[in-house]
């Protein structure tokens, strides 16, 4: 895979200089210590565009060691172009082993999905975050949102959810559904579908979030309570795939992609590419369990 040897010689292990990596790790420790709190950090420029996963890369490159096994997905897929591009970059800069196998990986970088396969205690799950500020929709100023978080002043956020419900009969928030972490901070989980939200709650893995462009890091430590925002009588729910199944496996308990074939027919297929592969290969597999998935009949 290493095509350009010149780079390997030229750049530090994992591209970023050690001082900056240390800075990022310090900020990550702070983030872990205050679950859900956004820690500002330097966010050095990376050779990929802002908005294309620089924050995730900062985290990955700062915590990665030579023995790590690295997996990266974009939209649930190991094969998506951006995932391929970043995988190649990380590999070029570190020479660590890469994998598609969720259970084998020690570091998993993601854009917009949590794997269907359950995460384990020795895994770090790293999110690329386009907009770290869950309150941005109700308050445009950074100065103000920081203050709102500081004082747990979340009324506006709640009212916006109330408004959504009265206008549309449901909470019209989709991917990136806001959550409350450790009963304190409201956090943007990055644009993962609602399907994935319950899997953050009491997860065995460490979840790290990097928003490069907005220069913020935050974290959900293992075994932390993560709750979607909901009212007593107006509840959060996950995407509804009732009556649909994966056309390849007939499986119903996974997040599905909607496909249109050339003949115009519509099909659904399991989004998580590694999960799909394992199902088809009948490999051993332990899926996340939560009250929403568990309700679905297989």
């Amino acid at each position, binding site marked *: 895979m290493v095509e350009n040897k010149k780079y390997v010689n030229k750049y530090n292990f994992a591209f970023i200089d050690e001082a900056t990596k240390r800075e990022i790790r310090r900020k990550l420790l702070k983030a872990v210590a205050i679950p859900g709190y956004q820690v500002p950090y330097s966010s050095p420029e990376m050779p990929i565009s802002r908005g294309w996963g620089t924050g995730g890369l900062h985290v990955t490159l700062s915590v990665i060691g030579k023995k790590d096994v690295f997996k990266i997905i974009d939209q649930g897929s190991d094969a998506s172009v951006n995932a391929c591009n970043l995988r190649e970059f990380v590999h070029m800069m570190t020479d660590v082993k890469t994998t598609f196998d969720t259970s084998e990986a020690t570091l998993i970088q993601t854009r917009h999905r949590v794997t269907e396969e359950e995460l384990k205690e020795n895994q770090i799950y790293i999110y690329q975050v386009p907009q770290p500020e869950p309150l941005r929709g109700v308050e445009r100023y950074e100065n103000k949102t920081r203050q709102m978080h*500081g004082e747990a002043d979340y*009324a*506006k956020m*709640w*009212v916006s959810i*109330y*408004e959504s419900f*009265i*206008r549309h009969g449901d909470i019209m928030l989709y991917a990136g559904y806001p959550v409350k972490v450790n009963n304190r901070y409201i956090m943007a989980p990055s644009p993962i579908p609602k399907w994935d939200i319950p899997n953050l709650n009491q997860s065995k893995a460490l979840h790290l979030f990097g928003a490069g462009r907005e220069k913020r890091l935050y974290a959900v430590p293992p075994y932390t309570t993560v709750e979607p925002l909901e009212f*007593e009588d107006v509840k959060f729910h996950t995407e509804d795939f009732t009556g649909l199944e994966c056309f390849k496996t007939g499986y119903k308990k996974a997040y599905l992609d909607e496909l249109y074939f050339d003949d115009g027919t519509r099909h659904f297929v399991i989004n998580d590419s590694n999960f799909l592969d394992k199902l088809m290969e009948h490999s051993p597999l332990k899926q996340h369990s939560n009250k929403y998935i568990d309700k679905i009949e297989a």
Partner: protein
Amino acid sequence: MSRTDDNWLLRVRNLTKIYGEPNENTLNMTGPLFNSNICPETDAIVACADISFDLYPGEVLGIVGESGSGKSTVVRLLYFDMEKTAGSAFLKPYNSGLANILEESNQKKRFIRNHLMGMVYQNPRDGLNFRFSSGGNIAEKLIMAGNMNVGQIRGRASELLEKTEVPVQRMDDRPSSFSGGMQQRVQISKAIANNPPLLFLDEVTTGLDVSVQAKVLDLIRELQQDLGIAMIVVSHDLSVIRMLTDRTIVLKDGRIVESGLTDQILQDPQHEYSQLLVSSLL
């Protein structure tokens, strides 16, 4: 039952707000005697100074004065919309009235605002979020006080809108589509949503048509009678003061020039400025 000195609801002492950089002479060289609230030495502006009074439960206190006299500043300081320069305020239901609420943390101030106070501003835009429905605006107050049940929130919101004579079927409309008078009613609903013992009304009828003004004033009177909320009514309009208040403070150039029973202020004003004010009442 007798009122003792200890029966107050809100106790304000030496409340002062100065903009700019005051020096040691600023307070001595401003005020009614100098006909100015601007320090001649430093240009600092004394919005209000040495404001002290007690408000009793269920009492309606008027603060009257011309624009720039500092009357709005007083209630905005008490509602934490701005930071005081000096002074203290104690609220009986909060920490038994032992804590200077002006020096509490923002989080505690928010608690006080949500549970113990309501504010109705002259401009509905200051008190309402025009991006939310009127029901949503009321919901904000209820949510802040810990109500997390949409059914209950909507029940309470309709109750409040009914009380303030806003058509309940407009609960889910944004206040931007309402008339000025109706916006004030929604603001009032929001302000009293959590049954606060204390309500601030800052020039609430200014800018409304006379007939609409009358209705808003009637509503405030009714609420006062029915709920027994203590109120501080800020107005430049003595007829509003006469209609609503028991007691009145007259402010000029940021200082209290006179305070007394409202009928006494209106019929036997003592201070030169109060006399001028009353004599200009139509």
